[in-house]
């Protein structure tokens, strides 16, 4: 196997190296990818969508259909992992508790630090989501950070406790809500007589906007949808992986 | 009714009978009545077509167009009608015979038996009426598949291995040789219709290509059992006798030679064949088959196997005649389809009757049988005479034409082959009759008691025997049909 793999890798590698000689030089501003569509996105994005962060504009508007399926991929992965690792017979989630347990073993410093860190981090995540129009970031990054805060809490406390707050059922519901927001905005455009995900149609129902601002605002909605799905599904994936699907004790 | 639809009715009537046969599963008498009735209707359709064809009318119908210029279509001409007549008339007789045979041997699954029998007949008539090679091929394949359950009807190990062999041979050759050859022709010429002058005349194919194509067809239609692709036929003799009789003396094997005749006359065209000059290869292969199979038949002790090898030889006769390309030879070989069918089916019926009445399968056991079953053995004699080619039986007419054809073609070697093989035929049939009548049985002192086969068996076999004789006198109509087809006078 090793010899075979080695030969395969060498052959493929040589093919790629030979091809790389044909590439435009690295960093060339006049190479085809940097000219054709790129120019349009750079110069027109703000005109057409009122979003200065071109990445967000392309992500959520020009190629919004891609992003919807990117979100669906995350959703699909969450379902997949629950399906693969899930155990049926047992009770799947614990009773909701009102407060975090007061006295348990574990490092008090870590727990206290977590208590301080989590709200701040979540606030930052929301900033990342909301400010994606103007700075790096957006729904996906924000969603990951939100998921990370929950993971941090499971590390500091334990999985059962956190699942009591954010149960598997809740993750499913929020993930669905996220995708529904995304796809729903798309369908809304259809209902308003435009094509799928053609946000400009939404200016008819968004007060005080023109077609361009409608695009900008819808993108925010879309980003929120992405964030919700990513947050809940990534946390659910973690919860399943860390407990081999039993959802009882974490690390 | 429009005359056009008659061939369609003739083909499909037995298919329509199938649901009825299945429905009447529990009522054997009705079920068999349905089979007989369908047979009569079918024969009626075929006979109704005869005057039209003799008048030179074009009866053509397109059922379904698969691609532009490539339809599934029927066209009735003399050769096809002759063949259809053979198949349809013998179906009635065989159905009657199988009632006697299958009931006496207490076979099971008779509903299945009659259903597939009916389907096979539909496919056979489909081949007979095909207007182009594609249609012919489709019905040819359908026939292979529909007869498989019949061959393996007994369901024991022997039947299964025989059936497997049957299917392997037929499918391998037809899919492996005929299909690519047909597609090649279609790709090159764009026409698969049988035409009097052939479709390959102006194709500009090289000599080698034509040879390959010719051999692909001649061997690919392995139902014709040309050596070395004959192996399935003796193996298929494990089937119940009515099946062997109808399918392996008439329907299946004749479909093979009929297809080869169609290729030679309709795709290559006799004139073009003569021009290309490859037909002699076929002549020699067929001649070899005639002689070798006759010799093998001599050495067989199992009666049905001897008949099978005899069939191989007689089929090669037909191909041999066709490959000579003279008008009289082609007429003779077409006629031999008819004559041999009635002669050989008589022989098979006799073999079955002997088995039913006495349980004997081997020739060595049949000493003195003529006294026990005189009627059967007398019919056997008539059948033998027809196959050998002695007057006053139909076989004489066709063999005579074949001989004349060989003389026309100035192929003296072929004349010799025909004569030698007729002698061999006599050598392997007549001793059976002779020993049956004149050599006393195991115990000469014991009084001989007649123990004939049941009437349901006996009557059909006498019918076919008598028709064999009648054909000697009535061969005119058949020859006329062929003349119309070939457009010549003999």
């Amino acid at each position, binding site marked *: 196997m090793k010899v075979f793999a080695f030969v395969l890798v060498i052959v493929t590698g040589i093919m790629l190296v030979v091809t790389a000689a*044909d590439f435009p030089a690295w960093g060339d501003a006049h190479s085809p990818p940097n000219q*054709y569509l790129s120019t349009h996105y750079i110069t027109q994005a703000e005109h057409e969508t009122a979003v200065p962060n071109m990445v967000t504009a392309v992500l959520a508007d020009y190629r919004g259909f*891609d992003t919807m399926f990117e979100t669906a991929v995350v959703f699909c992965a969450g379902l997949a992992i629950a399906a693969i690792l899930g155990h049926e017979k047992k009770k799947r989630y614990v009773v909701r508790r009102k407060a975090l347990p007061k006295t348990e073993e574990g490092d008090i410093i870590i727990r206290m630090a977590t208590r301080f860190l989590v709200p701040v981090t979540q606030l930052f995540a929301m900033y990342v989501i909301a400010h994606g129009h103007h700075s790096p970031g957006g729904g996906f990054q924000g969603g990951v950070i939100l998921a990370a805060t929950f993971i941090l809490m499971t590390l500091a406390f334990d999985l059962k406790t956190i699942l009591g707050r954010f149960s598997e059922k809740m993750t499913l519901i929020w993930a669905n809500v996220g995708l529904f927001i995304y796809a729903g905005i798309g369908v809304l455009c259809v209902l308003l007589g435009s094509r799928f995900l*053609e946000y400009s149609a939404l200016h008819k129902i968004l007060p005080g906007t023109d077609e361009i601002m409608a695009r900008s605002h819808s993108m925010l909605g879309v980003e929120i949808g992405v964030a919700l799905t990513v947050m809940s599904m990534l946390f659910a994936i973690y919860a399943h992986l860390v407990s081999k699907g039993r959802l009882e004790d974490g690390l | 009714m429009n005359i056009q639809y008659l061939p369609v009715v003739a083909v499909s009537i037995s298919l329509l009978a199938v649901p009825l046969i299945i429905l009447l599963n529990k009522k054997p008498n009705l079920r068999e009545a349905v089979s007989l009735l369908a047979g009569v209707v079918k024969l009626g359709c075929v006979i109704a077509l005869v005057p039209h064809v003799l008048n030179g009318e074009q009866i053509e119908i397109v059922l379904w167009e*698969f*691609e532009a210029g490539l339809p599934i279509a029927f066209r009735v001409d003399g050769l096809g009608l002759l063949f259809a007549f053979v198949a349809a008339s013998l179906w009635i007789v065989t159905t009657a015979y199988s009632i006697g045979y299958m009931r006496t041997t207490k076979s099971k699954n008779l509903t299945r038996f009659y259903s597939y029998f009916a389907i096979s007949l539909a496919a056979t008539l489909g081949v007979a009426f095909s207007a182009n090679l594609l249609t012919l091929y489709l019905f040819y394949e359908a026939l292979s598949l529909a007869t498989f359950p019949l061959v393996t009807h007994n*369901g024991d190990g022997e039947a299964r291995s025989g059936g497997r062999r049957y299917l392997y041979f037929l499918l*391998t050759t037809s899919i492996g040789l005929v*299909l*690519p050859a047909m597609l090649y022709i279609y790709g090159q010429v764009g026409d698969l219709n049988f035409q009097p002058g052939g479709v390959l005349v102006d194709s500009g194919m090289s000599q080698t290509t034509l040879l390959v194509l010719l051999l692909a067809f001649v061997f690919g239609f392995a139902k014709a059992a040309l050596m070395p692709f004959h192996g399935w036929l003796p193996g298929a003799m494990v089937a119940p006798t009515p099946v062997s009789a109808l399918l392996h003396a008439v329907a299946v094997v004749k479909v093979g030679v009929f297809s080869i005749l169609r290729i030679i006359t309709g795709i290559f065209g006799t004139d073009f064949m003569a021009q290309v000059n490859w037909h002699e290869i076929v002549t020699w292969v067929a001649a070899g088959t005639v002689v070798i199979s006759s010799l093998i038949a001599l050495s067989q002790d199992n009666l049905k196997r001897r008949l099978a090898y005899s069939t191989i030889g007689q089929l090669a006769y037909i191909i041999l005649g066709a490959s000579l390309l003279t008008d009289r030879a082609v007429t003779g070989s077409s006629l031999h389809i008819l004559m041999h069918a009635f002669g050989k089916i008589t022989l098979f019926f006799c073999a079955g009757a002997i088995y039913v009445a006495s349980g004997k399968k081997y020739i060595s056991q049949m000493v003195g049988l003529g006294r026990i079953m005189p009627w059967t053995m007398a019919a056997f004699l008539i059948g033998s005479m027809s196959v050998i080619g002695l007057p006053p039986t139909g076989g004489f007419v066709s063999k005579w034409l074949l001989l004349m054809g060989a003389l026309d073609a100035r192929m003296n070697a072929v004349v010799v082959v025909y004569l030698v093989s007729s002698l061999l035929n006599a050598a392997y049939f007549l001793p059976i009759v002779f020993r049956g009548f004149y050599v006393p049985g195991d115990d000469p002192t014991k009084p001989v008691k007649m123990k004939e086969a049941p009437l349901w068996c006996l009557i059909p076999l006498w019918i076919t025997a008598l028709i064999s004789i009648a054909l000697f006198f009535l061969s005119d109509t058949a020859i006329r049909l062929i003349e119309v087809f070939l457009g010549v006078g003999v």
Partner: protein
Amino acid sequence: MSENLPFLVIAAPLFGALVASLVGWARPRYCYAIAMVSLAAGLTAAIALLVKVSGTVSGYEYRLGGWPPPIGIQHWVDPLSALILVVITAVAFLAVMSARANLQLELPGKERFVYPLMLLMVTGLSGMTLTGDAFNLYVLLEITSLSSYALVAIGRGRAAASCLNYIIMGTIGASFYLLGVGYLYLKTGSLNMIDLRQIMIAGDMHGSQTVITGFILITVGFWIKMGLYPLHGWLPNAYSFAPHAASNLMAPLMTKVSVYVSLRMMLSVFTPDFLAVHALWAQTALLVATIAIIAGSLIAYSQTDVKKLLCYLVVAEVGYMAGGMWLMNRAGITGTIYHIAADAFMTCCLFLGASGLIASTGSRHIRSFRGATRRMPWTFAAFLVGGLSMIGVPPTCGFFSKWFLIQGAIEGGAWHFVAALIFSSLINALIFFRIIELAYFKDVEHEDDVSHPPQVQRNEAPWGIRIPLFITSVVIVLLGVFSPRVINWIERFVDSVGVT
């Protein structure tokens, strides 16, 4: 609304998946109904789309987000994609219809995962068929792959272990495709398929090393995804150990859609002219396909496990299509496209039949066919229709695809491919007649006892499997009977891309 049909085809299963995953939490029983309704909606939309496309000249575009093509993502519906879309949605509908009966036996309690995953998979597959954007195709490919990984791994026994291999091979295939698209992007700056073709023609890039490597990467990537012979390693295990409900859906569709995408890339992005320049590729590909057909058939012949046998038949059938598309003539391409449709139904029929058999006998050994003609005449008859189609017996659709493929191969002078096609037909005949023989004869122990015909217990497959099975077998015959119309339809596409 009719303008929005392409989106409806995709949105129906997507929303179905969402709703099913939610409802499934509380009421798993309703998942089946939701799945059926959404797939029926998808099928209806696909058929409506087919009708709509028949009224246009070459095709019909749908701009997602309203952006003009190279800037935004575009759906491109031409006769080819409309046809394949109908096939996909129809087969998915039938396969999912059988899922309930299978799931009850195999994976009770997992309905709430299986149906949403199946629906997501159908979403991905339909999207791959419709999309006109090379990168969008990658995303949809991944959603399809992810759901299929899960559907395989959810099974019992060896399913998970075979899934690991599947994931690795699947990721390599998808990544190769992604890289290939990257190479094209690097050279052209565009991701839209039609745009890519135009830029490549206008810039005369067909000789460029980058484009050539991109093409090789894309082709090899999809060879892995479709399971062409030397790269097929993952396929038999993954499909045969997957739950029947999943393999009924995956086996007919996954490979076919990969073939479709490969064909789409060759014809619509790279153009036949480009491929004609590199004659060596066609020879290599035909050789590989020939080997695939022969090897697949032979291995299938040696199998005793029914599902494994069918999987190797799929491997052989992939060889048909992978070779047929490289014939690059009218008959060859027509045959390939027709075979995509025909094979989807054939494979579906066989897998449904096999799952019905396993459901009623509990064994997946080929011996469990014993006496099937008496125990389950209807199930077996429907299964047999698929088998006969696999052999290529008219009037089933299998005959007509073979007809065109062989015709194309003869025209192209690819005699080894002709030989392989015929060889595999024969092997298929052997395989299915072995099964018929088992079903017919080896049934009753007391064969000799004539007076008391043994009472055979009727043991048909559950209705939930039988109904889709019947429908599929009827479709196989209808597709054959109406093949002239289908062929005409396909030739409309073939002529429009300039294949002669």
